[in-house]
């Protein structure tokens, strides 16, 4: 009911979106004190998931080059560790055919 009333109010005052959220200015994430960045030619693809099972979600970032994925472990308190390549079968994981 609250949403219906809010939508009606927005319609009445002439705003277009029926549901909108607002955000703070974007923050560039850092891992180990350095900006999280991917290798050339770019195309950073983030994922937020607990890959080490410590109860904190970590940042994984895929990239175009060789389809590699870097893991930035969550150290708590809003801090991410420096990135390490995700391993698969004991080697750096690669997702083939990224295109």
């Amino acid at each position, binding site marked *: 009911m609250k949403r219906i009333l809010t939508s009606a109010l927005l319609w009445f005052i002439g705003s277009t979106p029926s549901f909108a959220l607002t955000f*703070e200015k*974007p923050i*560039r994430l850092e891992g180990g004190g350095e900006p999280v960045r991917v*290798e050339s030619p770019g195309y950073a693809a983030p994922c937020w998931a607990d890959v080490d099972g410590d109860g904190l979600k970590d940042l994984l970032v895929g990239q175009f080059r060789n389809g590699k994925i870097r893991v930035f472990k969550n150290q708590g308190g809003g801090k991410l560790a420096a990135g390490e390549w995700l*391993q698969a079968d004991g080697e750096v*994981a690669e997702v083939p*055919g990224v295109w």
Partner: protein
Amino acid sequence: MAGLFQILWGGPSGEFQAAEPLVGTDGEPLIIPIEGPSVQTENICTRPTAIDWDSDGDLDLVVGNFAGSFYLFTGLGNGKFEPTPQPIMSGDEPLRISGVHSDPFLIDWDGDGDIDILSGSGSGGVQWSENTAGVGKPPQLSSFQTLIDPGEQISYNTPTSENDLTGPASSTRIWADDVNNDGKLDLLVGDSVTLISIAEGLTLEQFKQKHTEWQKAVREASAEMNSVSDDQEKLQEALKRIQSLYASKADLMSEERTGFVWLYLQK
């Protein structure tokens, strides 16, 4: 091969196996079928998201592509999928983002109990398609609307360092979660950007002048190449000229193509 969907199976101790393509119940790798050369962009740059889209208890795959549309591979449980995908519709039309490179992330964005679709785009920014169906009903998706405007486009003749960047550039890839644990969904946005440094010894004014001249020369060489496309000898000469021009770009500038990850915290 481009367009397949790779899986890194996880193990009990947190380890992963090497990537392998997901296959359908026909034993063939899953891929979006194409019906002609005009639609080849439908099955490249595919981006999968696993979600129980049809509420049957099995994970399905909702995938994006270069064309900006979306397909559903219905999951049958235990990593098995129907081999033929269905286009995801908005009314009677295929659902499409504004721009190319659809990048589906599925979540109940508006808190009404059904699953909506968020997407990045080749042009940057974040878009969302509201599901108005309600809990447990077949999805009814609205056209995409802008959630976050594309960032300011960086001019190709403007030196840009990473310290100049204030937000995501182009080719956005997204993830939504409550990153700061305040009970509100936030957005992680990956991007692609070209950082440009002026060659040593050039002032900004000199760089801009030389870059304008360089662009003019490239345009002329390209026009020449198009005009002599039937003459192999002249065509090769034109190609060499263009290659030479691109090689000379290093005299003006250096470029670094990279990408960053940005966090939008919800207010």
